[in-house]
């Protein structure tokens, strides 16, 4: 793979264009998770009693946090990247410079992960105001690293989809058939323990399940041995998706 430090140049370009949309995207990134926190956390949480000795919100926040990272980084590499390729011809002008196709794609993945980090960070801030905070400063630091890794994983998976997308409609299959169901079957809103056996098995194949497990462990500072599997899945799938995503996008860009 032809990767270089020029990834940062591409990241910088995105940062420069982002400053115009910063406020609107902050609002958009906040609204949906905020609804989840209010409806599920406060509304439903009142009926649910304590979860492992803590209020329900302590269970919910790390889950919603990581799913908002998933959403932001996914959408950035689906719609954002597609617009840059097809409508703005940005990739065409990038690859005419010493920036390689791989640099350009990796720069966009890095950018999408950064967007995920912003969404997650905003969620953390809102939750902190509501009194729901990670157990320690170290936990907060670990959480940021987790968000970054999960962002890279979902951004890379989205790149694979984008590399084959003929139009916008194509993305609906991915968001409606993969991303949205994942939100409900990965233990974001309630523990997987009460699911029937086969559903638990299915959940193990959803990357979000593992991301949520890590996020929750980091948030509460409760590390169990089963976490090793979760970390291995996120790291393994993340690296694999990154490599495959770069290859497939290169095929689309260099003809």
């Amino acid at each position: 793979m032809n990767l270089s430090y020029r990834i940062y140049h591409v990241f910088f370009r995105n940062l420069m264009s982002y400053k115009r949309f910063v406020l609107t995207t902050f609002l958009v990134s906040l609204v949906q998770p905020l609804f989840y926190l209010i409806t599920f956390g406060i509304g439903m949480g009142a009926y649910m009693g304590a979860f492992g000795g803590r209020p329900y919100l302590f269970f919910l926040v790390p889950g919603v946090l990581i799913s908002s990272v998933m959403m932001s980084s996914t959408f950035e590499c689906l719609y954002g990247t597609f617009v840059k390729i097809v409508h703005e011809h940005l990739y065409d002008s990038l690859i005419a410079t010493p920036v390689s196709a791989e640099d350009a794609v990796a720069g966009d993945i890095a950018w999408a992960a950064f967007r995920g980090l912003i969404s997650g960070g905003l969620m953390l801030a809102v939750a902190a105001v509501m009194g729901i905070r990670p157990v320690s400063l170290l936990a907060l630091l670990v959480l940021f690293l987790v968000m970054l890794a999960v962002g890279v994983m979902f951004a890379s998976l989205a790149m694979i989809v984008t590399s084959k997308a003929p139009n916008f409609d194509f993305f609906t299959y991915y968001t409606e058939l993969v991303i949205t169901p994942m939100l409900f079957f990965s233990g974001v809103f309630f523990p997987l323990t009460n699911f029937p056996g086969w559903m638990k098995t299915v959940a193990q194949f959803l990357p979000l399940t593992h991301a949520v497990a890590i996020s929750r462990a980091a948030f509460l500072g409760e590390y169990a041995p089963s976490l090793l599997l979760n970390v291995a899945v996120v790291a393994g799938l993340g690296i694999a998706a990154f490599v495959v995503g770069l290859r497939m996008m290169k095929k689309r860009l260099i003809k």
Partner: protein
Amino acid sequence: MSTIVSARGLTKKYGDFTAVDGIDFDIREGECFGFLGPNGAGKTTTVRMIHCVSPVTAGTLIVDGSAAGVDNRALKKKTGVVPQEITLDIDLTVYENMIVFARFFDIPKREAKARIAELLKFVELEAKRDSKIDQLSTGMKRRLLVARALLNKPRIIIADEPTTGLDPQARHLIWQRLRQLKSQGVTLILTTQYMEEAAQLCDRLVVMHQGRILKEGDPRGLIESEIGKDVVEIRTPLDQDDALVARLAPLACGHERVGDTLYFYCRDGGALWKALVDLDLPNTVHRPATLEDVFLKLTGRSLIE
């Protein structure tokens, strides 16, 4: 003059489709070399291979001493591209477009700032420095593309149909700037379907059709060898052809019927024109031959799709 781009048997295939079919050409350092051809002739594919964004399927392509595809980053550093599509960053201002692009070439910020000021002046866009791209006219956007292509002080500039969709004023300004660059020693590689553009800019050119090179030469030489000096056009019904050809063909060096028009190509149109005046036909035109005649004669006057 030494050769800066050299192709032998250069071929590009997309699956079963052959876009460029084993062409040979040499571009000399400091000249303006044109690729002429109708849509789909393979011009853009050829220049995309020269600036290393499209891999060569077969044959050899040497750009400035090294084979295309070996160290593309190094070759791209020496090349500036004025693309066919407007590929400006619409989220950014004019200045931001330039500064971001300068980074892609690792130009230090201080140097980039000075260079941008100089280049915006060169393409007469200083006043638009802080405008957004959608506030620019098409002509301004094309000029900005020219300025952007010059940021890295390229030795080779590839202009892929650089004046498509421009009004005459804007087109002439782009031509002047390109000629100015050539006078500074930059090698210019141009694709176009505007014959006037080719005649204005190119020292030498090739006419491409269906992935092949049909003819090579300088604009004037091509006109002389393919057409002659003059063209006489007669718009007449088809049934008069036999009589007209019998009478006029001996005075011309070639003739052709396309649609409602009979074309005679001549070395010296005077004699033929005189004969025509005697016939007293309406709807006749006598004019100097142009590159467009060469182009149409070689690639056919009927619609290519």
